[in-house]
């Protein structure tokens, strides 16, 4: 071969992100879970273009119609197109995931870092507060928050987000405590790294992997809890096309119009399953020793 190969620069600055992405694609469960998430995001973004009907448009003549070519998933008890409502529901689902995860993860991680790396006094105060939060059953705490703030989409998310804080705080604190005693932290200190540098460059990268894995498992659970809140009438309110709301409205027709229950149920199931296996894949990929 006389082809002149144009050599790519072999050594470039390492991009951990790109390599991680490649390994995620090669991991079957991460790839499948990631695809589910990608599809959800696309559906949420382009819902108005995909949906054939207005998700709020009532049609009294076409109530509880089974799936047909006009209405792929059938219609609900007031004749709204279920396919359109499910598509718009992805927006609620992703919004709930993003908001609850942000609340729990940012507050929980910050508290965990302060407790693990800060003074013994800060640790004592923070962890006792966390213990108090944990002493209440999860659902009871959510109900208390909703009772105080009143039921709505945003208070439901806030409640679920707050209820998720203890898990993150405990995980981060215990990881920091373990990492702090490792030889490489002593070594970094011995070689002149300041305590701030040690926290952000030595400890934090070691906390990140377990944190991301926990995030991917805790988020679908939080979304499920938010849907349960809606189902109980304490979260998102009708006529919003949120899957939990749709489930509670159609549950009385379970035997006469199964599709009205099956559609939001399957949507929830597929979404949460997708996020869970994405978490599984992430756990495998993020372990640097794999």
């Amino acid at each position, binding site marked *: 071969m006389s082809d002149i190969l144009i050599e790519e620069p*072999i*050594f470039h*600055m*390492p991009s*951990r992100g790109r390599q991680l992405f490649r390994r995620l694609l090669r991991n079957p469960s991460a790839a499948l879970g990631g695809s589910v998430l990608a599809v959800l995001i696309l559906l949420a973004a382009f819902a108005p273009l995909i949906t054939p009907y207005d998700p709020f448009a009532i049609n009294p003549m076409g109530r509880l119609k089974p799936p047909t070519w006009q209405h792929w998933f059938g219609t609900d008890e007031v004749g709204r197109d279920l396919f359109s409502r499910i598509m718009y529901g992805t927006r609620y689902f992703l919004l709930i995931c993003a908001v609850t995860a942000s609340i729990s993860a940012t507050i929980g991680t910050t508290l965990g870092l302060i407790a693990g790396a800060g003074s013994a006094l800060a640790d004592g105060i923070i962890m006792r507060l966390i213990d108090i939060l944990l002493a209440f059953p999860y659902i009871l705490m959510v109900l208390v928050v909703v009772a105080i703030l009143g039921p709505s989409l945003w208070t439901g998310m806030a409640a679920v987000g707050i209820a998720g804080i203890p898990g993150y705080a405990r995980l981060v604190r215990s990881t920091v405590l373990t990492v702090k005693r*490792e*030889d*490489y932290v*002593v*070594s*970094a*200190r*011995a*070689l*002149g*790294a*300041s305590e701030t*540098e040690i926290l952000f*460059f*030595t400890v934090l*990268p*070691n906390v*990140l*992997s377990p944190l991301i894995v926990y995030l991917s498992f805790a988020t679908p659970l939080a979304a499920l809890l938010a849907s349960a809140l809606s189902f109980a009438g304490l979260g998102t309110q009708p006529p919003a096309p949120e899957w939990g709301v749709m489930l509670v409205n159609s549950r009385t027709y379970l035997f006469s119009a199964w599709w009205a229950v099956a559609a939001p149920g399957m949507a929830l199931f597929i979404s949460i399953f997708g996020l869970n296996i994405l978490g599984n894949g992430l756990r495998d990929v993020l372990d*640097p*020793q794999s």
Partner: protein
Amino acid sequence: MLMTSPPSHAKPLLDIRALQTQFKSERGTVNAVQGVDLTIAPGEILGLVGESGSGKSVLALSILRLIQSPGTIAGGEILFDGRDVLGMSKKELTQLRGRDIGIIFQQPHGCLNPVRRIGWQVAEPLRHQGGLDRRAAWDGAIALLRSVGIPAPEEKALAYPHQLSGGQAQRVMIAIALALKPRLLIADEPTTALDVTIQAQILELLRESCRNFGTSLLLVTHDLGVVAKLADRVAVMYAGRIVEDGPVAEMLVEPQHPYARGLLRAAPRLGNAGAGRLQDIPGGIPDLSRPSPGCAFAPRCEVRRSLQLGRCLTEQPPFQTSHAGHRTRCWATDRSINPPQSVSEMSLPLEGRP
């Protein structure tokens, strides 16, 4: 035959005076280091020898004030280049660590952050303390990795610690420790966790690096062979005290202190394999939480027994300087009462030296 040690009148780089390090526990105070005096001259390689539990690692960590609670430095002075280390603020201390004094430990893998590429770990001191930007620090890291003998450093810089062998990991640690060109490198048992074949390479690298940078080296080890290969001067530590300290040639041929002699007899030598059994030193190290008023080695000391010296058990022997740069802490080596025994038949292998 041997390289001459630096002139002893040179101003020492590190000057440790009467250093005491203690660990407080419920069962009493353990005096791990009890009044150590030690100096290291610029460019000098000092071997600190002693068995496990003699306090040599604690001494090494004390120099950088890395003793963690419940340990404390209870007394004494540490002067680095004339500056008082024990009086330094936190900020001065971070300046001292890494920039003035580098350190490498026994377990190279444990000392590298498992989730970060080794290139970044070498580049980190260059960035944060050396003030270089990302790109320059990365290039500097590659150059350092090359200088410690990592093959294809551009590729290896992208590796994670678990992808390195033990010898490579220790080379990386040396690169990190030498990144800021410290004037003193402390190596705490740097080859103990390594293969015998790798040990020689790492020692050679340490010697070359220290010579190239003009770095002094405090080599903490229990391996007399390592000391024979590398050190200019040897200090023998026993139960938290330096018991003898002198030029390597004298220390390995004609040590004065009975403990130093015992150590030498317990070390295997090339050339007379099978010629005789290695002799151990009967007994074990004393309980450091109950210091005896006399010499800590006295209960195990054969010389004391044969000479019937009662003083050894009741009174701490002071240092006696036999001649320039060689001092011993022993009542029995007082030449007026105890002519030195011939130990010339115990000459150590020195063929490893240049």
